[in-house]
């Protein structure tokens, strides 16, 4: 069985600060990390590999040369080989152009059974690349996946998070799964022995020419959307603290305020 895990290197948003004047993100000097959602997806891929015989995990990303370190980390986590899709022609890709480029790489890899993605990346938070990639590959997709079980006949049992709880779904490959880690998820830190092994694993770099495809669909040219500006909206409105010793009194006061602002409707 072949698993392909799509990952992204992102700025560590816990380190990103906001310029107080322009409200834009200050990215200078911010360390890059493996997107935590993707980290979970890679760990799940490797868990399945360890569980079922003859499974290989290929990890891919589209990004600059620096993204190599994120792929190396995935290899240290247990993936078998890695592909870095890198070319200046891919610069400025929106989610659709990214999904198109990834789909070409996956088709070039050949036969696959499951594509794992993180639900979203912590820099853009769009959650669009996974579903768009499934569309481009022409395979079904399941999003908000917290847990994947698989049996010897490759029947997949999926635990999908919903606002009310979980949906338990069954499916068969090929399928794309967009993974959302549970709050209890503790990312693994690969020790030095795994890092040393990672260095010996196959690592390929593919450019636009290697991928083939329609170049007008790459990068900025292939993008339907463009990010003009990223900023934190200024704080609006006023904050009122309800200070009551009696919780019932506090609740009553809160309901009065909500009714007054029509956030609650009295029946």
């Amino acid at each position, binding site marked *: 069985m072949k698993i392909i895990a799509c990952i992204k290197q992102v700025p560590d948003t816990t380190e990103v600060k906001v310029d107080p004047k322009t409200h834009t993100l200050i990215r200078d000097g911010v360390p890059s*990390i493996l997107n935590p959602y993707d980290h979970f997806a890679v760990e799940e891929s490797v868990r399945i590999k360890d569980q079922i015989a003859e499974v290989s995990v290929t990890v891919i990303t589209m990004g600059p040369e620096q993204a*190599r*370190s994120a792929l*190396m*980390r995935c290899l*240290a986590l247990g993936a078998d080989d890695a592909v870095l899709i890198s070319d200046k022609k891919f610069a400025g890709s929106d989610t659709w152009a990214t999904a198109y480029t990834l789909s070409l790489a996956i088709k070039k890899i050949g036969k696959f059974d499951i594509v794992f993605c993180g639900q979203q990346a912590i820099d853009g938070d769009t959650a669009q690349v996974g579903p768009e990639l499934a569309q481009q590959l022409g395979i079904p997709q399941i999003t908000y996946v917290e847990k994947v079980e698989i049996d010897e006949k490759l029947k997949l049992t999926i635990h999908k998070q919903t606002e009310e709880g979980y949906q338990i779904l069954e499916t068969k490959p090929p399928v794309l799964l967009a993974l959302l880690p549970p709050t209890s998820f*503790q*990312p693994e*830190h*690969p*020790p*030095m*022995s795994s*890092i*040393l092994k*990672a*260095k010996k694993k196959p690592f390929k770099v593919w450019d636009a020419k290697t991928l083939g495809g329609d170049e007008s669909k790459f990068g900025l040219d292939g993008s339907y959307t463009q990010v003009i500006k990223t900023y934190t909206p200024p704080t609006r409105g006023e904050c009122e603290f309800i200070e009551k010793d009696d919780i019932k009194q506090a609740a009553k006061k809160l309901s009065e305020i909500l009714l007054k602002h029509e956030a609650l409707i009295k029946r």
Partner: protein
Amino acid sequence: MVDYRFSEEQELFRESMKEFCKSEIVPKTEKLANVRRMPEEIIKALAKFELLGMVIDPEYGGLGTDVVTAGIAAEELARADPSCAIPVLFLVGTSWGHTIDKYGTEEAKKEILPKAIKGEQIIGIATTESDIGSDLGSMKTKISKKGNKYVINGEKMYISGVAEAMEYGGGHVTLAKMTPEKGTRGMCLFYLPLKGTKGITPTYVEDIGREAISCGGFDIKNVEISNHYLLGEENKGFYYVHEGYELARGLIALVCVGAASKALENGIAYIKERKAFGRHIGKYEGIQFKLAENYVRIQALRELAYKALWTYDQEIQGKASRFEVSMAIAMAKSVASIWACEAINDVMQWQGAFGYTKECEDQKAWRGVRSFTLAEGSTEIMKLIIARELLGKEFLAYR
């Protein structure tokens, strides 16, 4: 121009090391005040992350990494635990594990190293005595041969990890005189198991810092050990012990870098928030000059320390001489504790009265780093080594 970059593996290791420290070490450091013994869970966590014995031959369970990579671990551990207790456990085990790996008998290596690497036993170093530190030639502890065993009598003092070795298991690489008339050329280095060894009586003292690792000593009365615990050849122990000390000194320099860097980060955050006389105190030149001076010193120390460990690696590969290593290591260690202490002291000063309280995190770092003007070779001895290399052996002091 020289390429100063770390290798890709080393960069990945540092990244993983930072995450390990953030999730596994930092939360545990809150419980380390005044415990005087390294909690077993921390030793196990270090072992699980393969930090114990990382430079040791894979045949005995190690990773066989270079010592620069061990330096990265030392630096990051000190950022996570600026009190320096955990870094000391790491650097002592690494340095003396390396010595056993290099000079130990096959039987001793198979017996000691796998357990140390798994965190089941600890490895320490015991050369100092109550009134003998730098002047090793005057030590009183003696070792003599008795059939296929050795008999040891004497005492060791101001030693790290005695309680841990007595309780969890393990022992100390120990130096003693075999042929007193030959002075330093009549010494033996050997492994002395502590737990359960008849004739060993431990004593303990309280260091002012590094509160999570024990400090003490042990009386050695007619202790018999098997001859397979001898490291290298008889009467060459003084030479071997310096190789171990030099690795430890290089790692210490990076422990000082890690602890001081963390303090400077704390200080930068503080002076950007704290106001006095209507302005953030970070806007005053008096603060800025100190910040810049300390930052430059710690960066310079970092370069010296990694260069020293790189030279140590070069020697292992046969590309550098013993004396080049001694010089490089001594240069880094001679300023490490002093510069780090001054940087941390300034950060404490910026914090006013709070800086002198036990709630101030940086005072723990100061108390820990202060130990390294003495531990593993005093600052003064480092200067003598540098002068020896500059002037020639004929100018060696105290000969």
